[in-house]
């Protein structure tokens, strides 16, 4: 940092200080009356001085360049030196002093504040060619007393500004890393016949070490993986990315879960940092029969809720990356129609509340037992955890994957409409015809409005009303849920800046509009959106029956949907 003062002239903060690279200190001397240059001990810096005149050269001034290196003994000397000093009185073995002499500096005044040299006032010979008088020295001494703290303040402000810029850069990089990491997670969960998959991924920091994936195998089966890297944040995210890539590539050639884990472990051991490892669970499911092979590398045992109640799929093995040659036993089970499976990381079971108690397995198991379906289970877990933790911040990454095998096969229908205003009614009516037999009247009406609003958003905003761009609608029906996907060529949901507030609207402080997405989110059980290539897809899920907690108390009025 620097300040430059020409006596009787102006004060200049040198913008060169914004440079990242430390550079030598410089000052103006020669026939310019005086110069103050700031320097931070321990950090060599360059200072550009300017005298009373706009251009030093025009006044016969000489710009001098004095680097004061961090190890220069001059800094120690100046720290205790009182007032103005003849350059001849400075330690001659100092490289900076030598350079000052070469450049005509006659007298220097150290700028010291809080015992620290923050700059140097360097002057050339007087214009009158007489020596500096006692009054001159007193004036310079006074000037130094005022200038030093001001200069230090400026230095601190610049230092803080630089640190703020650095923090901002790191935050931007983390945001990019988060986007990249999100690409590793499935943007859309695959269709598994009559199955329904729900998932939630919430890192404790911007990026995390948890991961999950659903990989469709060539023979029609699906490999489900869930993993958790020790630690969190950037180191965990880097190991997560590497492990995920190894799992994906291994699954191309090997589908036996134990063998997948064995191969990935052997590839990971040589490259994983010391003291880090990865827990990982692999399930290979045949959606048609429910037959499931699984193997486990130290991950939490998944819960299975079946006719016999809630059990755990027991399988144990060494976490990945710890020991070469580890082997993983394969187990088999059948997930029956109606069964619900939960894969979860320890971010949920090991979350503490304010008293230090952990959420634990018991609460997790109880949620599995009580949930109506996968979406409901994920929602209950997140809500239950938030209520349990209270003010305690999230301690670890959280991943939940719920697999619900439906009671029957899924039925699919797709159609398109042109992006013409008013066609949202056609979408609504066609969807209503398809799903009417599956939904009670109140849920049907709620879904119709949500579909209409979503289609209108796709027509007006996603496709910008261009009639040549179609809006595609896909309807999937199972015994448990209806999903309606509306896709357009836009970049995402048009979210209002503010949540609609009727008081504000009536007071004229919000536009009367802006209800669309607000209504959609409150009318159906779940709203998700994703980008798939050049398409933006909004998926609405409406269960054929409300979750148990949403069942109306007789004989009250029916409840339509719940807030996702």
């Amino acid at each position, binding site marked *: 940092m620097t300040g430059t003062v020409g006596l009787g002239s102006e004060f200049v903060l040198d913008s060169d200080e914004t440079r990242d690279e430390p550079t030598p200190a410089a000052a103006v001397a020669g026939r310019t009356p005086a110069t103050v240059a700031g320097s931070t001990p321990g950090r060599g810096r360059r200072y550009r001085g300017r005298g009373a005149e706009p251009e030093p050269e025009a006044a016969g001034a000489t710009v001098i360049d004095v680097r004061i290196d961090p190890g220069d003994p001059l800094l120690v000397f100046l720290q205790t030196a009182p007032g103005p000093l003849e350059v001849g009185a400075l330690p001659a073995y100092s490289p900076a002093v030598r350079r000052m002499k070469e450049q005509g500096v006659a007298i220097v005044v150290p700028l010291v504040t809080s015992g620290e040299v923050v700059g140097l006032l360097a002057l050339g010979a007087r214009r009158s060619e007489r020596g500096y008088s006692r009054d001159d020295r007193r004036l310079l001494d006074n000037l130094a007393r005022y200038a030093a703290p001001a200069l230090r303040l400026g230095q601190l402000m610049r230092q803080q500004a630089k640190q703020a810029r650095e923090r901002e850069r790191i935050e931007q990089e983390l945001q990019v890393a988060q986007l990249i990491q999100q690409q590793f997670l499935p943007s859309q969960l695959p269709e598994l016949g009559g199955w329904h998959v729900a998932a939630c991924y919430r890192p404790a920091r911007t990026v995390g070490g948890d991961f999950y994936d659903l990989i469709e195998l060539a023979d029609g089966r699906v490999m489900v993986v869930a993993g958790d890297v020790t630690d969190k944040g950037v180191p965990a995210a880097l190991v997560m990315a590497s492990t995920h890539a190894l799992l994906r590539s291994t699954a191309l050639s090997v589908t036996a879960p134990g063998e997948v884990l064995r191969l990935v472990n052997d590839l990971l051991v040589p490259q994983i940092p010391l003291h880090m490892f990865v827990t990982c669970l692999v399930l290979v499911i045949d959606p048609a029969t429910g037959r499931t092979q699984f193997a486990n590398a130290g991950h939490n045992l998944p819960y299975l809720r079946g006719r016999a109640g809630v059990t755990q799929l027991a399988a144990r093995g060494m976490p990945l990356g710890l020991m070469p040659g580890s082997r993983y036993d394969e187990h088999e089970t059948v997930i029956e129609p109606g069964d619900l499976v939960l894969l979860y990381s320890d971010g949920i079971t090991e979350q503490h509340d304010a008293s230090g108690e952990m959420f634990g397995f018991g609460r997790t198991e109880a949620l599995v037992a009580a949930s109506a379906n996968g979406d409901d289970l994920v929602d209950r877990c997140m809500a239950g955890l938030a209520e349990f933790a209270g003010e305690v911040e999230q301690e670890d990454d959280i991943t939940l994957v719920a697999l619900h095998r439906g009671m029957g096969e899924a039925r699919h229908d797709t159609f398109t409409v042109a992006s013409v*205003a008013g066609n*949202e*009614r056609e979408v609504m009516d066609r969807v209503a015809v398809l799903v009417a037999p599956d939904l009670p009247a*109140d849920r049907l*009406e*709620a879904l119709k*409005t949500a579909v*209409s*609003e979503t289609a*209108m958003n796709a027509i007006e905003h996603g496709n910008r009303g261009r009639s040549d761009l179609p809006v595609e609608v896909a309807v999937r029906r199972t015994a448990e849920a209806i999903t309606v996907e509306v896709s357009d060529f836009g970049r995402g949901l048009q979210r209002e800046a503010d949540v*609609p507030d*009727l008081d504000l*609207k*009536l007071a*004229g402080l919000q*536009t*009367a*509009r*802006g*209800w*669309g997405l*607000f*209504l959609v989110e*409150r009318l159906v059980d779940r709203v998700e959106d994703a980008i798939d290539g050049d398409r933006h897809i909004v998926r609405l899920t409406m269960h054929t029956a409300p979750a148990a907690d949403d069942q109306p108390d007789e004989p009250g*009025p*029916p409840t*339509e949907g719940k807030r996702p």
Partner: protein
Amino acid sequence: MSLSYELDQRGPTAILRLRGQIDRDAVGVLDDAYAAAARTAATVVELDFNAVEYINSTGIALIVGLLGKARSHGRAVRARGLTDHYQHIFEITRLSDFIEIVQPV
């Protein structure tokens, strides 16, 4: 089917019998309907939704606009004939905090 209305006055109440759908095409009609009700000496504007088959978010915004005008003129607004579904929408948008919902139809 676009929106149409009939005005009927009963004592201090101006009844606007709405028919059709309340969406973007209803802008002028709903404005006209309120203006007609405002020309009477009514202190209450009753919106009769019995023959309304569809209301979307743009329609909700129009109703908010009508409610704002009525309140600024010191008139109460009442809704009659809303289906259970649209009653629910009036509840989640909090229109029901400002508009008395009267049943039966």
